[in-house]
Structure formats: C-alpha cells, structure tokens
C-alpha cells in the first residue's frame, strides 16, 4: 500500500529494541568469571548501544530504506533486525532474539493502534528519535548521523496529508495483523487484556483537530444555524491536548514511543497461542521457503551497508539474556508455539535446491573477487557471508 512505510517501521522498531537492550544491559548480572569493575560494564553497555545505533543510522543503509518501496515481509524484516542486533559485541541466543522481536513488535503495534490521529505516528517516531539522540549525546560522529535522519524524516513526512498518513497506518496495521502476544508490562499496566488485545479507552482527550462528540448543528439554506442538539456519546471524552511538535526539537506531547522500561520493570512475554485455527495465518509462511528472489535482492542492497562484528575470540563478545535464567531461555526456545515461529532465513539449512541455485546466481551478480571479508562495506558484499553472520 503506502510506499513510505518502511522508514517509520524500522525506526520505531529499532527504537523499541534499543530501549529493551538498554534495560537488559543495565539489569544483567555480571558473570563472576569476568571479574570486571563497575566502570568497565558501563563502558561495555555504551559501546554496544553506540555500535548498534551507528549501524542503524548508516548512511547507505538509510538511503536504501527511504526509497519508495512496499513493506518487507515479516521474515525479511526480522532478518534485518537479527543482523542489527549483532552489530556489536553483544550476542543473543535464538530464544532471546525471538523474545526481543516479540516485545518490539507488540510495543509498536500498541503505539500505532493508540495514536489518536494517524499523523501522530510521526510524533511517536520523534519520541524514539529523541531517546536515541540521548543515548549517543556524547558521541558527536553518531549524533550527526542521527541529526541527518531527523532532517530526512521532517522532509519526507511533514508535508503528507492526513489521508496519506492513514494509508501508512493501515499498511502498518496489516503488517501487525493477528499479533496478540501478551506482554507482561502491558498486562500489568492494564493496557492489554489477557486475550492479548489492547484496551481502547472510550475516554480521555480527543485527537487534535477533533471535537468532543455530542453536538448536532442544523443550518438554514442561508447558512445560519437554526438548531442545536446534544446526544450522549457513550464515552467520557475531554477536549484535545495541544498539538505535539513536528520539528527536530520540541515537545511531542504524546507519551507513546517514550521508554516504558526501567531496571525495576523487567521485560517479559507470555507466548499465548494466537490462533485457534491455522487458517488464520495465511500470511505467516512457516514452510522452509527462502525469501522470494526480489526480496532477497532488496535485502542484499539494504544489508550491503550493515557491517557485522567479527569476534576475534569467543570471549570478547558477551551474551545478553532476555530471560531471568539460562534455563528459562532454553525452555522458551523449545516450547515456542508453531504459529509464532519467525522463520528466520538460515541459508545453510536450506535444502531447497532451486533456492540455492537462485542464491548462487544472486551471489554471482555481486561477488567480484574471491574476497569473502564481511567487514568490507562495498556493495558487493557476499550475501551468504552476511547471512552466515546471523
């Protein structure tokens, strides 16, 4: 539908990912054998955040992202975020990555649904951007990348009409369709029901530009108001708040898109089966088909800008666990319901001969020499090598 949706989807999901990782990095117990001092851990955390944010705002990557295009499939987008999450020395196991992605997507789904006006999705995006800017405020090089992205967002989105924003919103809602994963923090705050559906209140301020429902005005042919009537609106609405700022700096007014996690409010999900019959998930493809060729091409171009951190030795990276214990993480991986598998591309595991042939052909289009170094930023990055890093 809207060809302007991908940048907003990426930035908001990326923002949520950073909130979660930041919280986990702060909360994570220091393994006894590392024997690090408190200051060291602080540096590690900042380094991880900086590395991920640098990768997220890589100039080439963003150039590709901002081009008019249809949304990627869930599978393809998950692949991009897997890559992004491993852009630093931090490592996540499959189960933790799954949980991270669940939280990210449910959080943004919530924000999109609760936005009073479709245009407010841009304010939510600015809230994420503002927080990202705060994460890197001490690193000028990354800060300038972030500022550049602000300018691109303002340029691309502030002139769009309300109808075009609604189209973006509708495109996002199709992407999030049928996702009802229960998130502990949402359940506790009573913004999500136990069936996984979000609470949509019929009270509170109306959106900016909307009047509180209840008034009927009737006019004569000459244009004079002749009658006024009131009806009961079935809710408890109040007048709209002031409009948030759409500029690079400003008060966004809405709290949607701000960081709801803190060290004392750990992130947890409950994986409820989301569908009663598998027919509901006509879009979720759990068959071992690789991505369609066109999508692989797009992905290759996009990921050409993403460096993967090659670890010198296994010890220099450190693992982040999104669960409370290692056992819980293992258990989560085994017991993940079938309908919630993300089907992340593992090219090596693909037995499909035709798919391998297609990939080889794509590789052939990109590879110039035998150089397989994944740290090269050239567009001719080897696709398989990039995938191997996931």
């Amino acid at each position, binding site marked *: *539908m*809207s*060809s*302007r949706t991908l940048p907003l989807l990426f930035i908001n999901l990326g923002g949520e990912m950073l909130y979660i990782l930041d919280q986990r990095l702060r909360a994570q117990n220091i393994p006894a054998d590392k024997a690090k001092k408190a200051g060291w851990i602080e540096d590690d955390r900042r380094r991880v955040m900086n590395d991920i944010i640098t990768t997220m705002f890589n100039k080439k990557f963003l150039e590709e992202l901002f*081009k*008019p295009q*249809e949304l990627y499939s869930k599978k393809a987008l998950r692949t991009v975020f897997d890559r992004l999450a491993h852009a630093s020395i931090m490592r996540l196991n499959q189960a933790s990555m799954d949980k991270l992605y669940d939280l990210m997507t449910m959080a943004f789904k919530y924000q999109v*649904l609760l936005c*009073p*006006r*479709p245009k407010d999705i841009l304010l939510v995006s600015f809230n994420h951007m503002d927080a990202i800017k705060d994460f890197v405020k001490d690193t000028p090089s990354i800060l300038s990348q972030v500022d550049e992205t602000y300018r691109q967002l303002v340029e691309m989105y502030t002139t769009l*009409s*309300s*109808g*075009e924003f*609604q*189209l973006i*919103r*509708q495109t996002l*809602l*199709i992407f999030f*369709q*049928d996702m*009802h994963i229960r998130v502990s923090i949402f359940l506790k705050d009573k913004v999500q*029901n136990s069936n996984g*559906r*979000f*609470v*949509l209140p*019929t009270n509170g301020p*109306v*959106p900016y*530009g*909307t*009047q509180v*429902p*209840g*008034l*009927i*005005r*009737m*006019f*004569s*042919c000459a*244009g004079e108001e002749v*009658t006024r*009537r009131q*009806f009961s*609106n*079935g*809710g408890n*609405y109040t007048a709209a708040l002031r409009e948030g700022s759409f500029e690079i700096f400003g008060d966004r007014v809405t709290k949607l898109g701000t960081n709801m996690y803190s060290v004392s409010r750990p992130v947890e999900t409950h994986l409820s089966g989301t569908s009663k019959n598998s*027919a*509901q998930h*006509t*879009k979720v493809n759990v068959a071992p088909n690789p991505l*369609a*060729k*066109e*999508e692989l091409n797009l992905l290759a171009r996009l990921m050409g800008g993403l460096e993967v951190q090659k670890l010198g030795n296994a010890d220099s990276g450190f693992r982040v666990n999104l669960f409370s214990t290692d056992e819980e993480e293992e258990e989560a991986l085994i017991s993940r319901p079938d309908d919630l598998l993300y089907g992340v591309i593992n090219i090596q595991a693909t037995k499909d001969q035709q798919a391998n042939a297609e990939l080889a052909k794509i590789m052939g289009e990109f590879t110039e020499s035998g150089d397989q170094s994944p740290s090269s930023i050239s567009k001719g990055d080897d696709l398989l090598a990039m995938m191997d890093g996931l």
Partner: protein
Amino acid sequence: MAADDAKAVLLREGSSMYHKEKSIQIKNSASALYNNLCALRIAPRRLTYFTVVHANVVNMVSASWDGLNYSHRQLQSKEPNVATSTSLIMQAAFCSLPSRDLLVVTSQKGIQVYESDGSIMVYWHALDIPETQTAQAMFARGISAVRDSYICVGISTGAILVFDVPSKGSNITLSDVLEGHKESITDMASECCGGEVCIADLVSADDGGNLCVWKSGEEFKLLNHIPGFDISCSSVKLWKGTVVAGYGTGQIRLYEAVTGILHAEVNAHARWIYSLDIAPYSGLLLSAAEDSLVRVWHLTMTPESQSVEIAHLHNECVTDTQICGAKFCDADGYAFAVTGYDLSEIIRYTQS
C-alpha cells in the same frame, strides 16, 4: 418534532433499540480499511452474502436467514505479472444493477469483477502501474453501481473509471474516465432513494475531503464540487439528493448534493470514521469509527424548509475494537452488521 416521534416509535421505555445477535465467524480477521464490510441480500434464496477484506484475500460468507447454514469462500487478489510482492486489496463491494449483481474487488494491481457469489471472475482491468516504484501509492478504491448499467471505480490518482456493464456476460468495457479529483479517491456512492427521480446519480469523495456530484449518462456530467478542509472523507452516501459524508476528524456532514448547501454538521465520533451506511426506506443512518462506536441516526426530509434533519437514536460499543465496516442488512435498517480490525467475526445486531 419528527425526530422525537421517530425515537418514540422505535424505542420502548427502558429498552435498547437494538440487541446483539449471534456473530458470524470468518476465516480471517478484518484489515483496517475503509468500508470493510459489504452485504447482499438474496431474498429468493433466503440468504445474505457478506464480504470482509483481509490483506490480499476477500472472505465471503453466505449466511442463511434461519441461522443454520454458513458457507465460506475466499477470493485472492490477482497478480497478472506473477510478481513477488502480494497485491493488497483495498475494498470489495457488491454492485446491484437491475439485470444482475456483481462483486467488485479493487487492489493495488487492478479491478476484478466477479459474479455475486464469487464463483467466476468475469472481468479484469489492470491499473497503469509505473515501472519504478513512486512515492505516490497506486491502487483502486471506491466502488459504486450507478443507474442501470454502470460500475464506477476510483483510483489513487483521483481519476474515476466508468465501466459499462451488459445485462449478462463478460463484455464489460471502460466507457469513461472522470477527472474531478486531484487526490486519492476514498469512497463513492450512488443515489439510493429507491426509484424516485433524482438529479444527482453519484457522489465521489477524496483524501482532501473534496466531494464531486455527478449525473450519469454516456458521458458523465459533473454537477457540483463541494470543497473539503484538508481532512479526508473516508465514507460517503447519497440519499434523496443529500450527501452524507464522514470525515477523519469524526465529523459527519450533510450537504445538499446539487447546491452544496450545508444542512447539518455533527460531532459524531472521537476518532476517524471508517464506514457509513443508509437504510433507504426508513432513512436510518449508520456510522462507525476507530473509537469503537457504532451510532444509529435518523434522517428526515422536511419539505417546508427544503432541508434535511438528523437525530441521534442509538449507540453500540464494540469494546476494544477499531471498527472498519458497518452495514445495514436490509433496506429498512431492521438489522446491521459490523466488522473490526483484528476481529475474525461479523457482529450482528437486530432491532428489539
């Protein structure tokens, strides 16, 4: 006053005007698209067809009036280029012409026309898609049967395609392209007064809230252009020469079609309106929005003041649901049906 009388007639003290009936389960959940529910009553066979769009699929369910038989069918969007991307469906609507009923499905790639039971596709019109992806989205949206033999479909460029439909067979032809809008068409509606002579046949609405009023014929004529206020008009209806328009701000406005005179303005909903419907015999109006509310209103013509009045009759709250479709199931408004984003059922209400 006429409106109060209507309310008194329809309500008994202490009781609610409508009550909820058993829902119809559908195979997929409804997508958040404007006017995402259509109903076609097949009286001779005592059943009603419903259509609900989910991404690239139209879910059709045929429901017998006795509530005992339901049969389901799914229609996919057509991708003539065997492209890798799916073509998302924007809208599905039944078009009732004197000679036949057809089901029209509009998507990012084009317009598919089926027999009303969805069994056979009788016509396909591909949209003119540019080679490289543009920032401007390309799709068809806004469907209406007009008079005896036309089906009109809107395009995201603002153009309206007019198709000439024979009384049977698949020889449907594109007979006209109307240029009245510069912004994406959102919805269209034809006069549903039921047989009376009316001047205006068709009203079209766009993302800027602009409304165009047309007279049909070999060449359609633009009778009037009612300017908008940069707020999208997502749903529009035409009844007895009155345009009823629902907007993104939650307002409903009543205009006299041919003159553009504003008869009434209602602060109807707290969120974006997604669907309007009119029961032509009774003048009941149904409005539904993202705010979880469906409201029933009564429209009355007052010949003395040559005006239309609107009165509020009833509210239904579909808890925690952003409603995307609402339709009366019959021309009197005795029953109506509702769909919501992420909901896999058609919720039904009947007058008490």
